[in-house]
Structures are given as structure tokens and as C-alpha cells.
């Protein structure tokens, strides 16, 4: 095992370590925490963010960002419902077509960023806005309850071996995404484009094509998350999943992926999502006011970032204190 692999492993392992530490602390704080039921529930509740994260991670890997995942998820739930319950299509066909629309949305995002050279931040921010409008328009702003088909509803709430199906979907997608990133030509190309686009291009990578695929992957996983969400909540609603894009980015960043491009860890993103899930679950179990959730998440982001930067936490605190001391002495 070579040095950087060790380092990578240590970063991943460190995340695992923090995760375990959180689990230990939480199990002391609440005796209800460390139960199979509860842990299953946490996974169940993070699966939407998890599914989105393992696909959206490619955008930061190539140095971009995708802020439109929330709106895509909401829209896809609505589209799937319209196809099934207005046009009466078979549920599988409906899902298939919805995924196709996801591909289209991702393609548009990718095309605008690459061919028109507009920063991904602006493109996907605008997409977030107009896709929300489209979702409103298609659903007429209604909060639609999806009562059937029953097979569709099983996706979200059904269980296999006592574990909800969305968790399987999340894990399958995560494994797939991990393999895609670490063991395929496309993964190598995405990392290369993020590390140095020009150099990648001169080495035979087509950066535009890579980027377009990246946004398609991101949109497709968001679509899958949207379908799972629609099934899980038995609801299609334009305001579903608003603000999820920030949770997704949080998970990705806690997982050690830099927004500058050139590296990324799917397992990290998944752990990041679960970590945020643990924080929320812990606060819920303790019956803390909801105002603590964003505070705790924000602090975890900062701590994770500082640690990913190679600072140990006590070291960082010491550094800060030292700085204050010098500032004092200068006065």
C-alpha cells in the first residue's frame, strides 16, 4: 500500500472514526439511539440526500456544482404521477420516461455550462428556479396525493428483509457510483477534467462530453431520488425537496470532496449524509428545538472542512488562540 492510498484511507477512515464517535456519544445520550430500528430509520431518512449526493458528487469533482437537484427531484415526482395517473401509463414505463426527462434536464444543464461557457453555479441556480416554475405549472401548484399504482408506492415504503427498499436503492447507487468513479474510464476522465481541463484535453479526454455526462448523472440520480420521494411520501408536490441542494453539497463536502475539482469520494459523501442524519436524529431523539439542527450541521461542516484541510481539531483551536494572542500583543 502506497503513501497516498494510505492518506486517502486515513481520510475515509477518519470520517468513519468521527461517525463511530458520534454513534458512541449519541448512544450514551439517548438509549434509543443504538437500536436496529432507529439506525434503519436514520438511513431511511437520509436516503434521499444520499441518493442525490452519490450522483451530484461528479459536479464538484469536475470543478462544477449542481444546485438544481432539489427542483429536479420535485419535478420528476410530478411528472411520474402525471404519466401514471393522468395518462394511465404502466408504472415502470412512467419511471422510464421520467428518467428520460431527467437525462434531458441534465443534458441541458451540461450543454449550457460547456458550450456556452456559463459558470455551473449560475446555470444550475437558474435551472433550480425555472424547473420549480415548470413543476408548479405541470402540477398546477397542487399537492397531489399518489394513491396508486400500488407497485409504485412500494418503492418508497416497501421492505425487504425488514429494511426499507430506498436504503437498498441508495446503497446500490452508491456502490455503482463508487465503481464508476474509481474503476472506470469515465471516472478517470472526470477526475482529470477537474484536476486540469487543458491537460486532460491534450491527453485525449473530451472535457465537454465528460461535463455533460456529469450533469446528466447528477440529474438522473436526482430524478431517482424524486421518484423515491414521491413514492415514500405518496405525494407529488412542486415544493418537495426545496433546499435539498444545500444538504447534498454539505454531505459531499463533509465527505472530503473539494469544490475545486480533481478529487472526490463517494463513500465519503455517503458518510457525510449519514452524519447529518445522525445529528438530526440525535437532536430529534433528545427533543431539542429544530433551531439547533442548522447550527449543528453548520458546525459539523466547519469542523470537517478544517480537518480535511489537514488541521487536527486541537491544533486548529491552538492556532486560533495563538493568533488572538499575537493580535493582543501587537496592541
Amino acid at each position, binding site marked *: 500500500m502506497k503513501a497516498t492510498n494510505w492518506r486517502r484511507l486515513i481520510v475515509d477512515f477518519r470520517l468513519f472514526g468521527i461517525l463511530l464517535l458520534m454513534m458512541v456519544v449519541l448512544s450514551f445520550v439517548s438509549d434509543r439511539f443504538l437500536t436496529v430500528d432507529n439506525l434503519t430509520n436514520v438511513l431511511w431518512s437520509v436516503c434521499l440526500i444520499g441518493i442525490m449526493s452519490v450522483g451530484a458528487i461528479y459536479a464538484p469533482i469536475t470543478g462544477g*456544482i449542481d444546485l438544481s437537484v432539489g427542483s429536479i427531484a420535485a419535478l420528476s415526482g410530478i411528472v411520474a404521477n402525471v404519466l401514471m395517473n393522468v395518462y394511465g401509463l404502466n408504472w415502470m414505463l412512467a419511471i422510464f420516461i421520467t428518467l428520460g426527462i431527467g437525462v434531458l434536464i441534465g443534458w441541458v444543464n451540461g450543454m*449550457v455550462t460547456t458550450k*456556452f*461557457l*456559463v*459558470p455551473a*453555479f*449560475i*446555470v444550475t*441556480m*437558474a*435551472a*433550480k*428556479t*425555472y*424547473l*420549480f*416554475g*415548470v413543476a*408548479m*405549472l405541470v402540477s398546477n*401548484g397542487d399537492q397531489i396525493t399518489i394513491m396508486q399504482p400500488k407497485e409504485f408506492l412500494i418503492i418508497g415504503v416497501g421492505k425487504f428483509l425488514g429494511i426499507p427498499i430506498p436504503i437498498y436503492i441508495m446503497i446500490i447507487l452508491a456502490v455503482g457510483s463508487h465503481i464508476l468513479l474509481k474503476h472506470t474510464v469515465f471516472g478517470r476522465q472526470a477526475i482529470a477534467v477537474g484536476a486540469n481541463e487543458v491537460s486532460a484535453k491534450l491527453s485525449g479526454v473530451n472535457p465537454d462530453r465528460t461535463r455533460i455526462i456529469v450533469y446528466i448523472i447528477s440529474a438522473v440520480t436526482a430524478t431517482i431520488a424524486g421518484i423515491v420521494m414521491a413514492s415514500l411520501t405518496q405525494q407529488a408536490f412542486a415544493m418537495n425537496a426545496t433546499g435539498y441542494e*444545500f444538504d447534498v*453539497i*454539505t454531505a459531499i*463536502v463533509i465527505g472530503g470532496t*473539494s*469544490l*475545486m475539482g480533481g478529487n472526490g469520494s463517494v463513500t465519503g459523501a455517503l458518510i457525510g449524509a449519514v452524519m447529518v442524519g445522525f445529528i438530526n436524529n440525535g437532536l430529534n431523539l433528545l427533543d431539542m*428545538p*429544530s*433551531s*439547533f*439542527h*442548522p*447550527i*449543528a*450541521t*453548520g*458546525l459539523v*461542516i*466547519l469542523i470537517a*472542512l*478544517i480537518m480535511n*484541510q489537514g*488541521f487536527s481539531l486541537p491544533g*486548529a483551536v491552538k*492556532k*486560533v488562540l495563538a*493568533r488572538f494572542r499575537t493580535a493582543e500583543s501587537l496592541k
Partner: protein
Amino acid sequence: MSVSAIRRLILVGLLISIGAALSIASPSFLTLDNLMTLLQEASLTGIVAIGFTLVLITAGIDMSIGAVIAITSMVCVNFISYTHLPAYVFIPIALAGGCLIGWVNGFFITYFKLPEFIVTLATRGILAGLALIAAVKDDQGFVKNVFIQDEVFLSFGETVGPVYIVTIVFFVLAFATQLFLKRTRAGTNVYATGANPTASRLSGINTDRTLIGVYMFSGFCAALASIFLSARMMTAMPDFGIGSEMDVIASVVIGGTPFTGGVGDIWGTVIGTLFLALIKNGILKLGLSPYIQPIVIGGIIVVTVIADVWYKGFAEKRATRIARQKQALAKEGV
């Protein structure tokens, strides 16, 4: 004429023609009341956008501005509810609070070399939570939104003649910031830091201090906007401004300040803000479905930026062609 000047001219032209079209389509558009409300709206976003423009010039981003608006309004309302301090005492304190938040952002960004987006996203969460905790509660512990009756504080929402004070402040602030950027050393440092941080450091610019200063100014602007917003609404809510980041970013980007840093100015932002406010106001007048609004706004952002990139590309090509011709002529001359 430079590229940015032509671009600005086009935007102003669009602004005027859309305004003219609206005046014809809806007689209620070209009324003093409506124009003043439009300006008031634009000014509230615009004040925040001025601070944000500086951040964008340094190639950074500040996602915490919305949360700064929320927490500042909470600070003010706490002063009003629980102390008898006059407004002219606690408003400076609240503004200083905005600066402090900016300092914290800048500190994490410069000292730990963390990406701006994530740091400010984290502070956004923390501040949003703190705003809820700081909110004034009733006897049962539920958040209570206080109806503000402090005369001095409310005077911030008043008008001078037909013009809202916030509009005057917006234009004064815009003018002052533009002067600062273009005509002071510190302002020059902001551009230099955004264009080439390494070179700036080598030239003796303290880029860390510049960055921290810029984030402090962004926090200050958001806090200032918050006071005008609270005064206008005569109340303060813990979710004030949260989500308005997108409008601010859109205004600045439409105004022509790119994400790449080193370029941009305040007049662009002023025009961008007016443009966005005009579109929003116009959509309301046209009796369109409310669902169309996000589609139009999203579309406009994309179209402006695409047009920008295209035009810049075209202008660059033209410039290189001219330069090449000139060079050829000069060489032949020798």
C-alpha cells in the same frame, strides 16, 4: 468603447424598452407610487448586492447574506422588546454585528484556506438557527413576531418626498462604494486580490486583510438592508432574507460582474438590480400565472449570461484581429 460599456448600454436600453412596454401594457406601471415601490424593492436587494459585488470581485461568494439579514432583524427586535435603548444606539450595534459575522467568514476563509462557498453555507445554517433561538418568544415559548412601534427605528421605512429613504441610501452607498473601488488604494486592492492573489501579495497587498474586509462589508450591507426591511415591515421575523441570496446573486451577475474575479463594478450591479426588480414588478402587472415568474427569471439569468459570454467571445476575437492587423502593419513598416 469597451466591452463592458457596450454591454451596459444594451442593458440600460433593455431596461428602458421593457419599462416603456410595461407602461403601455399596464397603465398602473408608470405611476409615481409604483415606481417608488419598485425602487424601494430594488434598493433592499441592491444594498445587499453592493456588498456581494465586492465579494464576487475577489472571486469569492457569500451565501450567508440572507441569514445575516435574519439575525440582524432579531438583534434589533430584541433591543426594542427588552431594552429601552434608543434606535440610534442599537442600530450601530446591529450593523457592527453584521461586520462581525463577515469577519468570522473572512477569518475561516483566509486563515484555514477553506472554500468560500462552504464556509458561508455553514455560517448561513448557524445564523439561521441562532436567529430562531434569538427570536422573541411569548409566555408559552412560541416565536412571537413583534409589531415594532419604535418611532426612530420605523423612520427608516419612511420617505423623503416621494422617495423612500432606503432608495436614497442605496444610491448614496452605490456611489460611495464605486468611489471606494475605483479611486482608493483599498479599492484597488480588492480588484488586485480578485485578479491575481499571488501577484497582489508580492506587490505588498495584504490579501487576507482585504478579503476579511470585503466579507465584513458584505455582512455590513446585509445588516443595513435588514434594518430597512424590518422598518418597512414594522416587524422582524427569524426567516427574513433567507433564500434571498439567489435574487442578490442574480442581480449582480446580470449586472455583469463575473464569477472569475478581478472585474466588475457597482453601476453594473445597480442596473442589474433595477433590471431584476423591473422584471418582477412587470410580471405581477401582466396578470400572468404566478408559476410563470420563476421560469421567466431563471430564463433571463441564463440568457443574459449566455449573451454575455457570446458577446465577450466575439469582442475578443475582433480585438485580436485588429491587434494582429496593427502588428502586421507595424512590422511591415519596419
